[in-house]
């Protein structure tokens, strides 16, 4: 289960597989790295380029007068990037990750739209060259597509925002959890439906603290993203009174995610890696790319639960949640995409629903009116989380409850009971107004 981990979104993976060439080489040179790199081809096929996805459900008229239907076009821009593949076959990214969620959002918007004489359309740009992606998006914006859902690297997202400066455009980041994009690098024209790492870490921490598992053994991977996740965990520990008893970095060279056998060595390696730790209650693992974290449960030296990016995970959505009418939502998605909904799909669905909600409430298709409404105090969108979701007016982040779950089941929903806040309990998750480094919203 990805924890809002954008970079799993794409299925390149060839280079990454090779890069991992030697996970347990030191232990077993004999085990041939036989797994054919192309064996994942069924999931790694490059997504079809720029296929427009017409979702034009014919608007049914509520009466006979056939009023004029106003169209609100939405653009979805994905930067295809090479990312390592996760360990579990179950976690391999589907080709339409995120896109399927956006499509469902369009369908839902149009069901409402037929009563409002509004119609939403979706067009997609998928591109691996950031410069070309940006140029294509700018062209579309100039042609009248003002709402752009973005799944791109932090650098590309910022460049895209720069390129659109002065134009009528709203970017909605549904993929990246980076706090920096809401803080020091925040932009007034970028909203975020993806929860931040700090929101995810706080959601997890509140539950661990409620459980009185206050002593954490922090195990982190070598990547930059793992360091950022670990930062969020450290911050959460401090905020909620937990203690990190020791940190260990997983420095083994990661290997190919698949080989015939393999469990024998993992079974030896993980206990050794977690041996002789000071007393602790729970392992917290920071491994966003799933290079080793999913090996930890049931293999640690001490019998301890695992949380973080593996085991007990905090994320924006879970395919098994049925609370708050979620069943119908899950069913609709499965019918549309022929698979279960992942957090990034949910984030993309929310982005489209935000636009739809604003259009229905303002009864308008005017860009500025919609954006002002979304950022304004009366905006609220329902997202199958039991409370209304709204935009933080200091950094453009959508505030929302966070699910804490295991691969099969929901465990709890944060914020936890007893964590209080003067304005919204949802703001106990992530960077709060007094702490923000974002200036774009106050100028």
């Amino acid at each position, binding site marked *: 289960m990805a924890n809002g981990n954008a970079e799993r979104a794409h299925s390149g993976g060839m280079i990454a597989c090779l890069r991992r060439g030697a996970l347990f080489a030191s232990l077993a040179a004999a085990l041939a790295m036989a797994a054919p790199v192309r064996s994942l081809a069924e999931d790694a096929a490059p997504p079809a380029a720029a296929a427009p996805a017409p979702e034009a459900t014919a608007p049914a008229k*509520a009466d006979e007068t056939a009023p004029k239907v106003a169209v609100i076009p939405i653009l979805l821009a994905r930067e295809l990037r090479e990312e390592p593949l996760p360990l579990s076959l179950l976690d391999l990214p589907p080709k339409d990750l995120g896109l399927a969620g956006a499509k469902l959002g369009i369908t839902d918007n149009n*069901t409402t739209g037929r*009563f409002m004489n509004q119609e939403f359309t979706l067009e997609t740009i998928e591109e691996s060259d950031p410069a070309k992606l940006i140029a294509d998006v700018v062209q579309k914006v100039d042609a009248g597509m003002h709402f752009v859902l973005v799944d791109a690297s932090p650098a590309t997202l910022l460049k895209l925002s720069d390129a659109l400066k002065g134009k009528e455009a709203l970017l909605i980041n549904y993929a990246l959890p980076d706090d920096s994009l809401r803080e020091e690098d925040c932009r007034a024209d970028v909203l975020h439906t993806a929860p931040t790492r700090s929101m995810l870490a706080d959601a997890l921490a509140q539950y661990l603290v409620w459980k009185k598992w206050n002593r954490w053994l922090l195990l982190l991977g070598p990547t930059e993203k793992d360091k950022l996740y670990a930062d969020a965990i450290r911050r959460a520990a401090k905020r909620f009174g937990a203690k990190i008893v020791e940190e260990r970095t997983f420095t083994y060279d990661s290997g190919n995610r698949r080989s015939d056998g393999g469990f024998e060595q993992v079974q030896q390696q993980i206990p050794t890696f977690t041996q002789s730790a000071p007393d602790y209650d729970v392992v917290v693992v920071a491994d966003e790319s799933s290079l080793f974290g999913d090996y930890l449960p049931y293999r640690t030296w001490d019998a301890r639960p695992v949380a973080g990016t593996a085991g007990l995970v905090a994320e924006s959505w879970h395919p098994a949640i049925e609370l708050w009418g979620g069943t119908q939502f899950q069913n609709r998605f499965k019918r549309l995409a022929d698979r279960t909904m992942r957090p990034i799909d949910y984030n993309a669905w929310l982005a489209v629903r935000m636009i739809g909600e604003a259009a229905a409430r303002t009864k308008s298709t005017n860009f500025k009116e919609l954006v002002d409404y979304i950022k304004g105090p009366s905006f609220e969108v329902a997202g199958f989380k039991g409370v209304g979701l709204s935009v933080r007016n200091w950094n453009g982040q959508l505030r929302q409850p966070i699910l804490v779950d295991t691969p099969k089941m929901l465990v709890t929903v944060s914020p936890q009971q007893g964590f209080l806040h003067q304005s919204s309990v949802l703001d106990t998750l992530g960077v709060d107004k007094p702490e923000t480094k974002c200036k774009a919203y106050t100028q």
Partner: protein
Amino acid sequence: MKRIKVGALLLGTLSALALPVPAAYAYTAFVTNEKDNSVSVIDTEKLEVIKTFPVGQRPRGVILSNDGKWLIVCTSDDNIIQVYDTKTYQLVKTLPSGPDPELLILHPSGNPLYVANEDDNLVTVVDIQSGKIVGDIPVGVEPEGMGMSPDGKVLVNTSETTNMAHFIDTTTHKTFDNVLVDSRPRVAIFNPAGTQLWVSSEIGGTVTVINPADRKVIGKVRFEIPGVTKEAIQPVGIRITQDGKTAFVALGPANRVAVIDTETLQVKKYLLVGQRVWQMAFTPDGKQLLTTNGASNDVSVIDVAALKVIKSIRTGRYPWGIVVAPF
């Protein structure tokens, strides 16, 4: 059920020397237990569960046939409606519905039945005698609340994700107006005079009162409870007294029922009940209001005249729907 009607007994023996009569008549309340796949039967005089009987999977919305003989239950996970005998608790028959039926309402004439099917954006019209689907009405995303005008001419359905009250002509089965309300509308109900339509918005935290004649919003009821977070105030069930003067609104995880003056739309009082209160039903004499409290597995009994909670009755797990029979 041979329960003696206490009021009648007192009258018969003591004639006019009536004590301050407590809820005099023994009625029967039926409560669907969503988690237990059962129905709890409550004697409203003894205020206790006298029987629990098994039904289909995930029972939610529940109503009675006009003659009181049938208990009609949405068994959502079976994608069907079950009909039980209200005396013997035996399954009489099943009625078709679309997928995942949740709430239903009968035409005042006793037939047909209108069912909100959450999973396919349709209201299904079912003839309860023949057991046949006689119509489908397309509405918004996740249809839920079902309100019927007292004259039976207008059906109102709310759709949870579209956030609208859809006004449907019951003769043509066509939607003739749609009114936007706050987020996630759950329940729609007309006042007895048919001059107000009340719609609760669970996520919006409000109740919208609409004039059915011109479909204009008359006003909104807002709630504020000291010590309860705004997010916990989630209006769901609504009931209006027979005289039309007072409305009761169940506020979900705020664990309270709001008492509202229907003229000023001001909250007069909040009554503390069990946890996650959703649906409610009056006894036929209007003296008691029973609430289903999903998270605490009980039913609270409100004395309507005194505006006091007088008892809580343990039910099965996650009590959801409730209906009270006039016997």
